[in-house]
């Protein structure tokens, strides 16, 4: 079953409280060396049949208009993954 993967991240200039909290916690757990963390979203859109161009286009539009909030987020990528 093919899957379209959509990745969304908070815009770089926007505060990301979640990433900040993770970044602050990492060193306490002994994970050092990471200067900052940002947390975004990953969506897997599953498709019954084949990935047509239309479907991919439709996924791109959905990513831009619904899966992401364009005011604070960027769509990083919309890609096809086979048999996740």
């Amino acid at each position, binding site marked *: 079953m093919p899957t379209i993967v959509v990745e969304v991240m908070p815009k770089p200039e926007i505060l990301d409280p979640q990433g900040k*909290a993770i970044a602050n916690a990492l060193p306490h757990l002994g994970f050092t060396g990471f200067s900052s963390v940002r947390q975004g979203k990953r969506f897997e859109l599953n498709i019954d049949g084949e990935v047509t161009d239309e479907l991919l286009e439709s996924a791109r539009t959905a990513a831009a208009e619904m899966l992401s909030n364009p005011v604070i987020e960027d769509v990083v990528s919309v890609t096809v993954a086979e048999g996740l």
Partner: protein
Amino acid sequence: MTAETPLIGDHTVPETSPLAGARIGIVTFPGTLDDRDAARAVRLGGGTPVPLWHANDALHGVDAVILPGGFSYGDYLRAGAIARFAPVMNTIVAEAGAAAGSPLPVLGICNGFQILTEAHLLPGSMIKNDHLKFTCRDQVLRVENTETAWTSQFTQDELITVPMKNQDGQYVVDDATLHALEDQGRVVFRYVGASPNGSKNDIAGVANERGNVVGLMPHPEHAVEAGYGPDDATGLREGTDGLTIFTSVVSSLTGGNA
């Protein structure tokens, strides 16, 4: 009761009660909200609340511990995911799981329950409510296990009403563990009526195998004082069903007869 609005970590208590011997630690993490309420509930239950600080691994010899509700670390990442790594949790995990002697009674309420699952002291996990919204409401629960230190004064299958308020309250667990929980009678509280969040088997609270660690999503500490609790038949906000949790632990700790 103190006349001051206490600062967090400043629960001054008169040690005059005969049961004040039951010293119950209440952990404050950054982002904890219901610690003062839990302290009040312990006090009204006859015990002595002892503030515990997340960054300090000392338990100061408390007889039991409550992990209160709130949004530790903003619930960022996952509810309870960051708090679980706090120094105080290391000690709690060790003492609650101690093989020898009687292990430390621990109660996790809401965020505290989430922290206990993240720390693997309790099985399963909480995901977003099936309706995806934060919901605050009066919730009826059935108490299905009265063997734990926290529920000994309830009667079997007693129905109680306590407030519930959360966004990530849907209890999920794999099938094998779910069967084990049911078979071993480790479901301590179950939702009654329409499911508030889609939890597996309407589970509201569970215990570990030995019964010393209990977690539940609803808030018994908000149902301990008439006038400030959930509504009940006697009137607006009169419900105090949650108090039994606190009198149960105090009485079991002071060797009282349940």
